[in-house]
């Protein structure tokens, strides 16, 4: 098992022992090739993403410039735009210059406003990430205690009522998409009760409704996972022994059970963060939130291809980075993780 990975350097010193071991384990992973394999997978995925993003422009049927400028645009303008974009060069050299441009932070310029796409991304990305991260934090903070509570109440099949209510409520909450939550929340709390602004980003108050809309489904999903995991741990012998020791409930559940459920909960939390970033597109649209999502929808409807291309690339890269980080975190946190074999 983990015996072979036990770091030889883990000494008896109390200070730094934990950090030392964590580092040792991480290094063990490097030796076992886990980090390397993950890194290779990440680089390959990123390469595929870049090619796909490049191909997007070329897969558009007909001439994207003509399609964007409309049939009434003068032919000289179309030709000039095509030359500026390098669309007449051989396809391979186009791909190379596209990739090298992306790595230099040059994503092209908007067909419509002439703004550099890089600036659009730089100004809007923080708003999107802020929303997604806050929603994830809120979801975890609510879901973990909720799931544990439900598990403790329904252990060994007691309180059937709680179990039925919990599974039906979370099932329904998962099934409703985030844009419907946004619309419902706007209708009730912004238009009806006027407690929160209906749209735009202006101060902390404006974050409440978008975060709520984004967080409800993930909360239900994490709470479910957390309940199942907690139930499993409650059946283990170490819990029996801890109960035989007559530990107070808080100590039993938070010190003994919680750490053992966190791995699976965090895995799902990480995967949901990726889904949440995509879900934020719809929520941003409802709340006219000045993030990347609103902009990418506008650019697709207006056929502003460079902006759509750049923003979709950024979204894809974020998803890849999040997945990589979750994998690495789990590899370090859980010494017995099965991940390291894949």
């Amino acid at each position: 098992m983990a015996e072979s990975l036990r770091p030889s350097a883990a000494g008896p010193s109390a200070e730094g022992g934990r950090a030392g071991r964590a580092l040792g384990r991480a290094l063990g992973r490097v030796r076992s090739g886990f980090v390397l394999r993950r890194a290779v997978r990440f680089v390959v995925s990123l390469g595929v993403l870049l090619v796909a993003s490049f191909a997007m422009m070329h897969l558009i049927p007909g001439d994207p410039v003509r399609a964007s400028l409309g049939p009434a645009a003068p032919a000289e303008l179309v030709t000039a735009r095509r030359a500026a974009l390098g669309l007449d060069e051989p396809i391979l050299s186009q791909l190379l210059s596209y990739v090298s441009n992306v790595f230099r932070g040059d994503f092209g310029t908007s067909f419509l406003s002439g703004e550099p796409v890089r600036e659009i991304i730089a100004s809007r990305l923080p708003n999107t990430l802020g929303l997604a991260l806050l929603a994830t934090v809120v979801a975890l903070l609510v879901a973990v205690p909720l799931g544990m509570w439900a598990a403790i109440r329904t252990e060994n099949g007691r309180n059937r009522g709680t179990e039925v209510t919990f599974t039906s409520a979370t099932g329904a909450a998962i099934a409703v998409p985030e844009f419907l939550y946004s619309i419902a929340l706007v209708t009730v709390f912004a238009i009806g009760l006027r407690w929160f602004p209906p749209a735009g980003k202006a101060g902390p108050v404006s974050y409440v409704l978008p975060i709520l809309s984004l967080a409800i489904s993930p909360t239900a999903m994490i709470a479910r996972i957390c309940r199942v995991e907690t139930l499993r741990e409650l059946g283990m012998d170490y819990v029996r022994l801890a109960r035989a020791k007559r530990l107070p409930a808080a100590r039993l559940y938070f010190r003994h059970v919680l750490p053992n459920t966190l791995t699976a909960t965090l895995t799902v939390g990480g995967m949901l963060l990726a889904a949440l970033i995509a879900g934020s597109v719809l929520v941003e649209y409802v709340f006219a939130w000045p993030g990347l999502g609103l902009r990418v929808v506008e650019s697709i409807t207006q056929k502003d291809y460079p902006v759509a291309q750049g923003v979709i690339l950024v979204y894809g890269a974020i998803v890849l980075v999040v997945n990589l980080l979750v994998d690495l975190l789990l590899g370090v946190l859980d010494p017995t993780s099965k991940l390291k074999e894949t």
Partner: protein
Amino acid sequence: MRHLPRTPAGIAGTLLVALMVILAIAGPLIWGAEAERIDSAAILQGTSAAHPLGTDNLGRDILARVLVAGRLSLALAMIATLIGATAGVILGALPSVLPRRAARLVTGTVNALVAFPGLLLAMFTAVIAGLGARGAVLGIGAAVAPGFARLTQTLAASVAGADYVAVARMLGVSRWRVMTRHVLPNIAEPLILHLTQALGGALLALAGMSFLGLGVQPPSFDWGRLLFDGFARIYATPAVALGPAAAIALAGIGFNLLGDVLARAASRRATPAGAAAGRAVPEAGELGEPDPDAVLEVRDLTVTFPGGVTPVRGLSLTIAPGEIVGLVGESGSGKSLTASAIGGLVPYPGEVSAGRLRLCGADVRELPEAECRRLLGTSLAMVFQDPMAALNPALKVGGQLAEVATVHQGASRADAFARAVDRLEHVRIPEPATRARQHPHELSGGMRQRAVIAMGLMGAPRLIIADEPTTALDVTVQREILRLLREVTDETGAATLFISHDIAVIGELCHRVVVMYAGRVVEELPVEELASGAAHPYTRALVASLPDMETDRSLPLASIPGRQPSPAEVPDGCAFADRCELASAKCAELPPLIPYRAGHRVACWEAK
């Protein structure tokens, strides 16, 4: 699908999906004309008697349009799901038929795509295919595919080991044929199940695309498009957005609930229904005066589970200080539940009743809650079978020991930790200070069991309950643990209740032996009499089943024919009668546990 559980969620899911299907078929036929009728006199109205959900910019009734739009929403979702399912199943089956290198490439691609949000893929195809239903459907289909591919791959791998696949391979059937003829038909059910969930997901994703204005374009309309139109007017007339929103939400919930219920029904099909009903037989007897010296005194202990399952029936047991009592019996005889009942750890929904349950001279059931916790927490030590499972993998060994002292004895953290190290040293763990700062997985199996025993020594144990403490360990380690247990008992004067199915170990360690069969004590005797003085036929058979130096190794081991009755079907009379050579008509009546010789009691009519 034949066994849909009648839960509220299952019924609600089925009804909602049925409603959606009926709506998709009948909606356009009934309200089609109404939905298209332009009324310039009723443009952009709110709620009214004629138009419950208002009208749109051409004066068309929105309620009728919502009812009609179901067909397009559902149809597009189905097309997207079918595209995704087909592509996914092919992609998932490929690794089984491709050469290894190509197979790994496909697997890797699928793994990378599964984590990719569908909406991003849909936006990608929307850019290429242009705005409209086609781009959205293709994109959602592409997003559905990786899930199916992953599922097919996993399922195919699980079937690939089956005998019929191996036989087909041996007969030289081509890989592709094995896949299509043998593997796919056997994994069809979970795939069809996944279809329900994927359909719900596709419906919501398509609604999302249309709502963003990237999906269905006018003059066509689905629920998402109606929501797009309604959302623009939400400040003035919120009702116009709520109709389509409710339709989308109900469809999403319906498919999700149905998918959940189908999945659960499929996984439940394998497990049989509840156990047969029986009767609880509480056996009241003379209690007598409590024994003031006994560490543990149990009278008429009965553990019952719903449905008349009674694994422990009227058990009585007294243990004196310093005494090691072995509780022996086959698995299912109720010995572990007896231990749990004494420790107050019987899992819900089990119910414990007893005429008397005294630990260290106090009745556990009469003590106030706080005092009971302290008594059980410090005076009772428990050791379980699997030391890996008994230690919390996430916490350091020393901390798990120390918390007994901090919680029950009010010790400071430093003092408690020092005591933990001392206790670890006491059970002869080398380098106790280092070990205390390690996690359980860094200790060997024997060391872990020592640590669990040390945990019991943190308090002042009066009773140690060891439930098969050596079964999971190898033989040399077993001896050390047994020796340690005996030393601890000698030293602390604590009593030990040692539970095992291994009568050899019991004979070696214990002073007194209690034999359990089908929830009852059948014999209680001093260990010296075990080898030749046992009176109950069951005990004698257990002893006879042990090989010793004189056993003729060429003969098969003596074993007892028949099987112990399960806790739900214990007969009223002697439970061993069915397997007993001496059984007579009298055995239909329950034999009482009566004195046989000094310190020796037996429950058998035929005991001489």
